[in-house]
């Protein structure tokens, strides 16, 4: 038995009180000169033994009352499975929340943080006994029930814990608490006593920022938890509040477009999340698991990111799997980063022709098409793998354009069909790129009403008057790129190209545009009117050219400048295959096939797991066949295998990669005080030690259970004492 308030045990000395009272009473008596002594002596003789026993019993009872009271007040911790424990405990419902975020891969000695978390979770289950039930939740970015319905099968729960492994995602303590509150509400009928164990490494990112006030949902969840249960936070993180960690936070190509045989620059970024400078960090570069080179970073300051560039030519038109790896540190899970790419894969771009003419050259999209699909180079290799498709305006309303990496509108008069507007918005929101070229056919009112919608729509600027220059009297305006800051879409545009563009391209007409707040002006005309305005919309991007794609208002098409601009834009901004193929943990993988692709089944093999078929949404009238694979919880390369229908050409295996969110590599940990601050002062028990945890559980229980039971016993004994005292005549 472990007292929590040992000084209270001094109170057991109070057990001497009845003895002292007894002795004092012995000295305080009345004296009576008594005549009927004979009978008194007779009764005394007869009663001597019985009275003695009664007196002893009463004394024992009184001593026990005081001693037990003192023990009860010292909040005793009885060992588990004690008989008393079984009486005092009406059974409880333990809800164990197991943190399995990326940071739990951290090595502490020969164990990982997760090993420790798992051990604590196991010991919590071991501490349960007959009549107890347990629920287990796994906490990462989302909270997954491992055992949701409270079970009394503790062995099964133990096995479930043993089977758990650390994940690659982040953690979401707030979400976990909300899920717990939800669980508590649902299982309110279960055992009256509920203990919640949040076994975590206290990684700060999982708790949310301190400036982020608790949402109403969280407040309600905390209220529920406070009302129904006790919360124990068990910190099994490393001892250090800010552990050292190096991570590969990015592996990027210089363009979304990976041409076959073209030299591609791959850049690996290594960030130091720790507090000390890291020296001589070796970065190894692999293509299809073959080491292609090693670079050394001499020093990375704390909080700094160093980049290492590798150059590589993907000489075949096929899927490649690239990865970089740095030497292992305590958290190896973020020391490798994968990049899956399909070299030479076509990048489908949809062009909407706003002016259909008899002569191809007069089509509004003529120059766009030519720019995006330039003739082959001297080596017979295609200069670009962009594959443009041109539709008329009405086709946009009728057909599915989800599979295109970018959609360009060229002098489209109006998009009055609200369904098409909605589809376009959805397309961009989910990561598509929309490039809008204006022109003389554009209905400014319709664009403002349908696409701008007071800033809520797709357009990054409200359109105004046309500004057309009479070339007879004046020469056109030139283009000036914004340099500070440089628009991301033009960031790879080198100085020479930029100078060519600024020197030779002349604009004679444009539509004045007022950028909405949050939009970026990438380039202006002489005189200051915006020429290129971009804004993010959902996961995608909208780029507005205030001039035309055809040669009506400029000489972009004639000079080949359009090719330069479009390749830059699509290479940088358009959702390339790369973006879709290289995901962060928990981002869903979506694969959209060409219309009519005769795919029968797609099999996905996550790293270290068995392959499984992905659900294939078949082609229907509106939409291309596609798969959506949402279970991207494991970091690493995922293999895609395609089974085709009979007679169709086989498709080669491909990869997509899943990488951890770099944010998760920040191992800073919150202290109990910080965590409490984040929970708006919510009271919880915090411990770093499983043994202490059990003590605290007992402690939190004792005032309600053990101490209460003890006090009840004391009360019962006091009543007994009263009755016996009366009975015995004392």
């Amino acid at each position, binding site marked *: 038995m472990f007292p929590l308030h040992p000084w209270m045990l001094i109170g057991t000395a109070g057990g001497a009180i009845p003895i002292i009272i007894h002795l004092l*009473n*012995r000295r*305080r*008596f*009345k*004296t*009576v*000169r*008594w*005549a*009927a*002594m*004979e*009978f*008194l*002596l*007779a*009764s*005394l003789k*007869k*009663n001597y033994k019985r*009275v003695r026993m*009664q*007196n002893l019993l009463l004394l024992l009872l009184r001593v026990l009352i005081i001693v037990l009271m003192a023990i009860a007040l010292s909040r005793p911790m009885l060992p588990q499975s004690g008989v008393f424990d079984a009486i005092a405990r009406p059974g409880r419902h333990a809800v164990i929340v197991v943190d399995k975020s990326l940071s739990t891969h951290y090595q502490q000695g020969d164990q990982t943080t997760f090993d420790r978390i798992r051990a604590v979770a196991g010991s919590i289950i071991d501490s349960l006994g007959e009549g107890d039930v347990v629920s287990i939740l796994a906490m990462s970015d989302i909270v997954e029930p491992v055992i949701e319905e409270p079970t009394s099968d503790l062995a099964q729960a133990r096995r479930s814990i043993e089977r758990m492994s650390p994940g690659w995602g982040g953690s979401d303590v707030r979400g976990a608490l909300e899920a717990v509150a939800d669980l508590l509400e649902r299982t309110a009928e279960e055992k009256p006593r509920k203990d919640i164990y949040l076994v975590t490494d206290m990684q700060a990112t999982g708790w949310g920022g301190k400036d982020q006030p608790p949402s109403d949902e969280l407040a309600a969840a905390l209220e529920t938890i406070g009302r129904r249960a006790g919360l124990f936070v068990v910190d099994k993180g490393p001892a250090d509040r800010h552990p050292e960690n190096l991570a590969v936070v990015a592996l990027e190509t210089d363009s979304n477009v990976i041409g076959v045989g073209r030299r591609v620059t791959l850049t690996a970024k290594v960030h130091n999340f720790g507090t000390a400078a890291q020296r001589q960090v070796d970065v190894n570069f692999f293509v299809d698991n073959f080491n292609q080179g090693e670079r050394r970073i001499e020093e990375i300051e704390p909080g700094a990111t160093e980049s290492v560039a590798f150059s590589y030519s993907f000489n075949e038109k096929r899927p490649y799997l690239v990865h970089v790896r740095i030497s292992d540190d305590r958290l190896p899970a973020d020391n490798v980063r994968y990049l899956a790419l399909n070299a030479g894969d076509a990048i489908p771009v949809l062009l909407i022709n706003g002016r259909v003419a008899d002569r191809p050259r007069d089509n509004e999209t003529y120059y766009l098409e030519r720019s995006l699909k330039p003739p082959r180079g001297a080596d017979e290799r295609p200069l670009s793998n962009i594959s443009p498709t041109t539709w008329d305006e009405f086709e946009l309303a009728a057909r599915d354009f989800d599979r295109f990496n970018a959609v360009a509108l060229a002098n489209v008069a109006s998009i009055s069909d609200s369904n098409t507007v909605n589809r376009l918005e959805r397309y961009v929101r989910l990561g598509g790129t929309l490039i809008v070229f204006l022109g003389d056919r554009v209905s400014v009112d319709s664009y403002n009403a349908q696409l701008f919608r007071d800033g809520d729509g797709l357009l990054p600027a409200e359109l105004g008057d046309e500004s057309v220059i009479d070339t007879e009297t004046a020469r056109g305006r030139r283009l000036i790129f914004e340099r500070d800051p440089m628009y991301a879409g033009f960031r790879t545009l080198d100085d020479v190209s930029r100078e060519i563009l600024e020197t030779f391209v002349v604009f004679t007409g444009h539509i004045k545009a007022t950028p909405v707040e949050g939009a970026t002006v990438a380039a202006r005309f002489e005189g200051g009117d915006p020429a290129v305005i971009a804004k993010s919309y959902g996961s995608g991007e909208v780029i507005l050219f205030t001039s035309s794609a055809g040669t009506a208002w400029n000489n972009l098409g004639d000079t080949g400048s359009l090719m330069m601009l479009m390749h830059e834009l699509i290479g940088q901004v358009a959702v390339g295959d790369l973006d879709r193929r290289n995901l962060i943990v928990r981002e869903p993988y979506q694969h959209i096939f060409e219309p009519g692709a005769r795919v029968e089944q797609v099999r996905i093999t996550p790293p270290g797991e068995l392959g499984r078929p992905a659900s294939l949404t078949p082609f229907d009238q509106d939409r291309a066949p596609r798969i959506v694979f949402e279970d991207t919880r494991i970091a690493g390369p995922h293999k895609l295998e395609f089974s085709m229908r009979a007679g169709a050409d086989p498709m080669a295996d491909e990869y997509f990669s899943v990488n951890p969110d770099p944010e998760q590599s920040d191992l800073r940990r919150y202290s109990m005080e910080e965590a409490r601050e984040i929970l708006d002062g919510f009271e919880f028990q915090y411990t770093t030690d499983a043994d202490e945890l059990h003590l605290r559980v007992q402690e939190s229980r004792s005032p309600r259970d053990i101490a209460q039971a003890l006090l009840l016993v004391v009360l019962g004994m006091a009543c007994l004492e009263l009755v016996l005292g009366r009975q*015995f*005549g*004392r």
Partner: protein
Amino acid sequence: MADIETTEDYQKYLDPNILARISRLDIRARLVVEGFISGQHKSPFHGFSVEFAQHREYVPGDDLKHLDWKVYAKTDRFYVKQYEEETNLSACVLLDISESMAYQSGPLSKLDYGATIGASLAYLMLQQQDAAGLVTFDDDIRDFIRPASQASHLKLMTHQLATVRPTGRSKVGRIFHDLAERINRRGLIILISDLFVDPDELALGIRHFRHKRHEVVVFHVMDDDEVQFPFQNLTRFEGMEDYPEVLAEPRQLRDDYIAELETFRKGVRRTCRQHRVDYVPLLTKDSLEVALSAYLAGRLTARAKL
């Protein structure tokens, strides 16, 4: 006799609480008896003797059977016939003056109460022309006043009763045998005691009295405390009559004490019944009327047998 007010005044002296305020035993005895008598319908005075003495004028309260109708016929006046009182009833009061009789929780100790009974009875007896004697005893006979019927005898007895001091231990065996031999004349033996004596000796003593054809009335005087045992807290009982002292929790002992006592009283009662002895349990808080009524009943029995 006394008017109504006086009657009530007298009657109140039957209450031990009132009596306790009167220190002179002779006065006390007179008050008790007057109070007692005034409550009776029939005057117990006047004898039952056969030898005519004189006539006296009738006063209300006189028994009509003693009216002399002849004289009435002659004189048209009521005369009562008075007879020469016979003193053939001899009563002897045996008062226990052992230490245990000193116990007192109420206004009167057992001894006070017993002495008052003794004095009252003596007064009553002498009023009735009976011979009254007094024996005080503890482990031996302390005083022995032979029964006599002179009125002056009362003074002697009350003085004796007023001056006794409780001492020693009561021991009845030898004393009773002795007394049974010494009191020659058959009569009434009135034993006033708490009877904290050896029951066997008591039984033998009573048997001896009965054997000598004495009528015996036992006034068993006890204190209310001795019967109820009302003590609550730890008490040191200092034994009288050479008993040791005992420290005890009275509440624990009460039941058994009362049981013991009850056994004792039953034993005494049984002894009395066996020997056709009147047994009168008295508590010092009780009215003395009980004692006097019991005496009168005993006296009638005694006379009837003479």
